[in-house]
């Protein structure tokens, strides 16, 4: 019983962390129409940043700043934000394919750097030796995982509320205005490239937060954690859940992560031994098919964006009771 329960907590923690990343992507893609092809780079920046800033000093490696945990997490988010700012500054004025390609390139280069730079990130061995916060007080067992899950859940809720407020605010309206018709927004004196940059950086910082939590959860991060696979998964979560809808984003995260976990388990359990090598390929074909199928048949996702007219015009027909 405790085994099942502890697995459920483990699953829900991972899904919640990914949901935070999906929320970040939803701000970029769902609300602003920015294609981020390198989600994993910003996620990874958060994870590596947190562990390097908060980890103990290690021989032959930069880092070991041993910052207190909140500072390390904020630092990781800042690394993600700075990376997004540089990429955004270079590409957001150009047509949208440039952002897609450049972000994809960031992810390739980031993974490549982490794999090779032993002095910075431990190379292929990754960053080890990170002390999880409050471990001395709570210990390492089930209780710690439960507490950590509650903390992640609270952060997820906080992120959700923050984004809901942001989207409902005048700034959120501006984002949608630019997504729908850039020139119209420009004619009203708004600066699309600056607003886009703000949204892009904010979304990436949220992905960095998710990455920081992920790194904390495992107390370890290696180049294997920053493969392009994660970008596909986060994208699939958003597309299936419903781009533009924060509830859809969270729902999609749990649904796809559940499907991914179950399909992986089923393939390893029921597939013949000689086919085990190919379970990864089958999973990728499935996730690719889910993405393409959704775009062809239900591009709005399972929970579509609800467009609300926030202020009714002075047209008397629209007035209540008339």
């Amino acid at each position, binding site marked *: 019983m405790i085994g099942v329960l502890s697995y459920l907590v483990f699953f829900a923690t991972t899904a919640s962390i990914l949901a935070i990343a999906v929320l970040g992507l939803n701000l970029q893609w769902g609300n602003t*129409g920015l*294609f981020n*092809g390198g989600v994993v780079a910003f996620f990874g920046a958060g994870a590596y940043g947190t562990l390097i800033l908060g980890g103990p000093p290690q021989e032959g490696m930069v880092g070991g700043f041993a910052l207190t945990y909140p500072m390390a997490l904020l630092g990781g988010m800042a690394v993600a934000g700075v990376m997004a700012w540089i990429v955004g500054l*270079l*590409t957001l*004025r*150009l*047509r*949208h*394919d*440039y952002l*897609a*390609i*450049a972000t*994809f*390139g*960031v992810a*390739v*280069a980031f993974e*490549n*750097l982490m*794999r*090779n730079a032993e002095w910075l990130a431990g190379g292929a061995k990754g960053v080890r030796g990170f002390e999880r916060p409050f471990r001395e007080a709570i210990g390492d067992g089930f209780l710690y995982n439960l507490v950590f899950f509650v903390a992640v859940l609270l952060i997820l809720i906080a992120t959700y509320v923050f984004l809901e407020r942001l989207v409902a605010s005048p700034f959120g309206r501006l984002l949608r205005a630019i997504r729908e018709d850039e020139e119209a927004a420009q004619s009203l004196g708004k600066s699309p490239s600056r607003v886009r940059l703000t949204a892009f950086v904010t979304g990436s910082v949220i992905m960095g937060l998710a990455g920081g939590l992920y790194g904390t959860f495992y107390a370890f991060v290696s180049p294997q954690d920053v493969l*392009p696979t994660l970008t*596909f998964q986060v*994208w699939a979560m958003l*597309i299936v859940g419903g781009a533009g809808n924060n509830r859809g984003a969270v729902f999609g995260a749990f649904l796809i992560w559940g499907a991914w976990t179950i399909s992986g388990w089923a393939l390893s359990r029921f597939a013949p031994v000689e086919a085990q*090598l*190919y379970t*990864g*390929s*089958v999973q*990728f*074909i499935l*996730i*690719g*098919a*889910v*993405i*393409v199928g959704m*775009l*062809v048949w239900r*591009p709005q996702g399972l929970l579509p964006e609800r467009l609300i007219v926030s202020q009714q015009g002075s047209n008397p027909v629209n007035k209540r009771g008339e």
Partner: protein
Amino acid sequence: MIQNLIDGVLTGSYLSLGAIGLTLVMHILRFANFSHAELLSLGAYSALVFDALMSGLVPTLAEKLAPLSLTWALIIAIPFSMIVTGISALLIDKLIFRRVREKGQELSMVFASFGMALIVRNIIGLIFGLSPQLYSKDIAFAMVLSLDPLILIKPDQVFVLVAALILMLILHLVLSRTTFGYALRAVAENPSLAQVNGVNLPRTIMYVWLIGGALASVAGVFYGLSHQLIPVMGRDLVLPIFAATIVGGIGSVYGAVLGGFIVGIAANLALVVLPSGYTPSVPFLLIIIVLMIRPHGLFGEARA
């Protein structure tokens, strides 16, 4: 250093071929097609199948054309593979991209191409296995061009370069001398105006996929000749090809050719200063540099 330069030119010849199709699609359909590199894999693997088929049917074709490691069977397999890959590109467009396009979701095309890339790459892995394969198991001996400094070049590489240049010349003649070439450029310039003037838009798009797929297939075979065939080759090629289109300017065929060579040479020259592990990052650095100093590439023009 000179060796790196030569290797770079040879790398550039297949990157250019891949980039031409990509830049055309990006210009006319206006989306970054992340599945284009999978057409290279598709072409390379279908050539492998036709090569085996030809050698099986007519054993005399399986003999090597010394000093190349190339066989007649493989040379005959290339046009077949071009046709198969071109038609596959067309089918993928018909089944997936056109539907997404018609739903008015232009931006979603990019993502659909991500999904398509995953599907194609892993189906190839399922069919052909995950381990690398070669067209010919014989070792192709390198020729010594100069002893001081020692410069080596494989006969296959010379063949690849010459064949790539011939293909580019043919494409250049088609684009600059035929009505079809004019129509293509007109569509790229302004689709609605081209249609008003009697250009059949759907048919032009069809030809773009056919040409892009065919050139990608040759690029894939050439990559396979220079390195090895592996199902994830598309993953390693997608960024260099994108970099080539950005360096040359999206939409410019000549830019793509030049961009391909620049990316190939830069990646090989980088070996002089950087450890080889960092090579995959070079195209990204190149993209960043181009975006900083000349955002629309060498031959590109600003377009929203």
